[in-house]
């Protein structure tokens, strides 16, 4: 039994050791840019990836400014698509499963927004449909994929690929979870740091950022 546990953790460790650092950095900069222009972030995926998307949205929206909520009237606006199960089933039943993300995305999409697409295979048709819609509108796409990256890796502007053997869903999704938490932590630490600097400036009577 212990071998099995060690084997699994080794796979996760290998994937963690090979994180695409530059692409994650690029994603963080894209997210900072969307904050600067007060745009919105749409995130989606199937199954476990949808669960990751939902988990991330709740963390990201709630905790990034949690240090000093009252001092930040502008906050991130992350939205999981579709926003309700009712919409999900309505789009799937009435239009088709390949439109469950692209359909709601079209409702919301503005030029100042950004998309995070999560797919372990990088090949899910409904994810790709929504990514194509974003690309058509010149909206930046952060693609979080696994295995060989698939079509999502090809289309994304920031290509976060957790490269593994095909079918390693557990490994890929575990590492995706870590990357998403990294994004939340980064902005939480950043805005907390900035707040501290601004407090010092206020004390000295200088104009804050």
């Amino acid at each position, binding site marked *: 039994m212990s071998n099995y546990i060690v084997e699994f953790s080794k796979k996760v460790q290998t994937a963690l050791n090979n994180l695409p650092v530059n692409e994650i950095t*690029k994603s963080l*900069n894209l997210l900072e840019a969307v904050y600067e*222009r007060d745009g919105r972030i749409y995130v989606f995926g199937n199954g476990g990836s949808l669960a990751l998307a939902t988990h991330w949205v709740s963390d990201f929206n709630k905790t990034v400014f949690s240090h000093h909520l009252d001092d930040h009237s502008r906050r991130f606006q992350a939205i999981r698509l579709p926003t309700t199960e009712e919409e999900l089933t309505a789009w799937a039943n009435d239009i088709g499963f390949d439109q469950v993300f692209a359909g709601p995305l079209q409702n919301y*999409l*503005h*030029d100042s927004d950004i998309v995070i697409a999560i797919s372990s295979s990088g090949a899910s048709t409904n994810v790709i449909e929504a990514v194509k819609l974003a690309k058509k509108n*010149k909206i930046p796409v952060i693609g979080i994929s696994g295995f060989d990256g698939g079509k999502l890796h090809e289309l994304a502007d920031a290509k976060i690929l957790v490269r593994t053997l095909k079918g390693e869903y557990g490994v890929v999704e575990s590492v995706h979870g870590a990357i998403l938490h990294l994004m939340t932590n980064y902005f939480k630490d950043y805005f907390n740091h900035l707040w501290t*600097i601004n407090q010092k400036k206020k004390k000295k009577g200088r104009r804050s950022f």
Partner: protein
Amino acid sequence: MIVVRAPLRISFVGGGTDLPDFYRRYTGRVLSTTVDKYIYVVVNKTPLIPKISARYKISETVDRPDQLQHTRIKAALLDLKLKKGIEIASFGDLPAKTGLGSSSSFSVALLMALNALQGKKIKSFEAAESSCRLEIDLVGEPIGKQDQYAATFGGINIFEFKRDDSVNIIPVYLDYKIRLEFENHLLVFFTGITRDASSVLKEQKVNINKKMFTLKQMADSVFEFKTLLESGNFKEMGKMLHQGWLRKKSLASKISSGFIDQLYKAGINNGAWGGKIHGAGGGGCISFLTPVDKKNAIRQAVKKVAKSHKLSGFKEVPIRFVQSGAEIIFNSER
């Protein structure tokens, strides 16, 4: 109606090597960052008013684009074959001609807005290249290409200008700690003097043959600056700026002046590691890289110099670096 916002930029090293007379012989390189000061361009269709209206420092209303005084708007409308029923207005966080690339930020925003008005969204290379074409080829400005690229892409980048006219972008990735430290070590002042980049650049262009060696040094120093920046070595970066200042001054007589020299000396004498005058020179903005505890002394010293020259427009410009490039921030045509 469409509103496009494009950031201004501060370039640190390599300015001048983005001119074709240089980069057609040797790869030009510039390291710059976009800042939280923006140019806004608003365009609107007026189907019931068959005129062209342009509102900037002045207001023009004409029947045909070729009657406009504003060279960039005129050239863009003629090129895009937009004949009438359109109004264009621009707004800026800072005055024009401050050396922070505002005219190119305007061009990028204008072209993104006019294209979007016709249902075509342009971004990244297409937006940057068409802005270069507008300013350099159609209007005939003797300027380089760094500003159009900086305004389009946003963030801290090295732009490489290749012999074949292509541009390579190398992003400089910094985490927030170094970025905030960098901001904290930087002081930027608007001199209160505005000047046209063209007059300085025309002289610089003529001088390019004589100055090839200096320009090569400037282009090559970009990677060293990047390495220092990535490790947060602001002192050495400041010293590099000082070297760059000395080199840039040797390029054209109009880059500096008695007043600018005095300002610069005031900064250095009060503890700044180095500094530079922004844009083509002759006025605009001046900035210093400095130890944090010397900032107040420098502020007081440069203000004194400005006062002695009766420059009421002289003021500190608080800036933050931004990641965003030119973006459509409102589009009612969607």
